[in-house]
C-alpha cells in the first residue's frame, strides 16, 4: 500500500467549510468497511465565559510535517486505510468547525482507536495554539485549553 497516497493534510485560513459544500474534501477509500469523521467545533463558552471564537496560530511547516507523521504512524500502528486531516488557522467564530479528522478502516474498532489516538497525540505535539476571543470589551485571551 502506498501510504502517502492515502494521507491528506491541510491547514486553511478560517473555519472549515461544511463537507456537503466541499465534496472533494470527503474521504473516500476503496475497500473500507468504516468511514469515520470527527468535527471539532468551537464552543460558545470557555470556562463558563462567552467567547466570540478562537484565533488559531500555527507554526505551519512544522505543524504540516507533524500531522503527516502522525497520520503515517496511525496507519502503521492501527492498520487503518486512509486519513484526512484539516485544521484551521486564523479566526474561527464559535459554532464553526476548526478541525476535521476522517479515517477510513476495514473495521470500526481500529478506526475508532486510531481517531482517538490521533487527537490525543495532536493535542500534545503539534505546534498549534489557541487564542480565545472573549465576548467582552477587553480582549484577554492567551490561555491554552482543549477544544
Amino acid at each position, binding site marked *: 500500500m502506498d501510504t502517502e497516497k492515502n494521507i491528506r493534510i491541510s491547514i486553511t485560513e478560517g473555519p472549515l467549510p461544511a463537507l456537503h459544500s466541499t465534496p472533494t474534501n470527503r474521504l473516500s477509500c476503496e475497500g473500507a468497511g468504516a468511514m469515520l469523521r470527527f468535527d471539532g467545533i468551537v464552543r460558545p463558552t470557555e470556562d463558563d465565559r462567552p467567547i466570540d471564537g478562537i484565533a488559531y*496560530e500555527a*507554526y505551519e511547516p512544522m505543524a504540516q510535517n507533524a500531522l503527516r507523521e502522525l497520520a503515517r504512524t496511525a496507519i502503521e500502528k492501527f492498520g487503518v486505510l486512509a486519513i484526512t486531516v484539516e*485544521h484551521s488557522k486564523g479566526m474561527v467564530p464559535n459554532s464553526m468547525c476548526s478541525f476535521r479528522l476522517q479515517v477510513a478502516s476495514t473495521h470500526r474498532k481500529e478506526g475508532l482507536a486510531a481517531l482517538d489516538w490521533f487527537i490525543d497525540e495532536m*493535542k*500534545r*505535539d503539534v*505546534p498549534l495554539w489557541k487564542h480565545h476571543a472573549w465576548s467582552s470589551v477587553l480582549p484577554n485571551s492567551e490561555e*491554552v*485549553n*482543549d477544544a
Partner: protein
Amino acid sequence: MTDHNLPSTFRRFATQFPGVVACHENMAKAVDAAGPLDAKTRALIKIGICVGAEMESALRSHVQSARQAGATKPEIEQAILQAMNTCGFHRTVAAWSWAQIQFQRDDHSEAAGPAGASAVRISVKLFGPQAHVANTDEVRLTFEHDPTCAQVLDALGDSCPEISRTLSGSRLAVNQGFATPEAIVRESDEVALIGLVGGG
C-alpha cells in the same frame, strides 16, 4: 523598530484590520508633526503616559523608541520616577521593572549584533502565549560556540525572564522537528520554542 520586531499581537491585529492600523499610524505621524518636540522628548512623554495608564507593552515599546532617539537609561528611569508623586509608588516601581526588562532585551540584541566573527547567533521563534508574554515572536541569542538545546533554553530564560517559568514544560524544535536537550544547534538552523500546544 523593524516590522519584524513588532509585537506578535499587533501584527496579528494588523493582518486582520489593515485599514484601522493605517489610520492609527497616520494619526501617530500627525501628532508627531504637530509641534516642536523632538523624538526623544516625545518618547519620554509617552513613557510617562504609559506609567500612569499601567500599559506595560506600550511602555516597553516607547522605552525602545526613546533609546533609539538617544535617551540614556538614567534619563528614561528619571522620566518614570516623575510619576512617583502623581501616580504613586506601586505604578512607578512596576513601570521601572518593565523598563528594566526592555533594557535587558535591547542590550542582549545589541550584543548579538556587533559580536566578534566567531560568535554564534541563534534566532529562536516564539509562538502562542509565550510570544504574547515576551511581547515578541523572535529572540536573538549569542553564544561563543555552537550551543546545545539545553544551553539555548537556559539563555532564553536569561534573555526573557517573563517566560522563564514556562521553559521547563517547553521543547525546542530544530529545523521543524523536536530536538533532544543534548542536540547541537548551529547558526543556520531554524529554531523554535514550542510551549504548551492546543490544537483541535
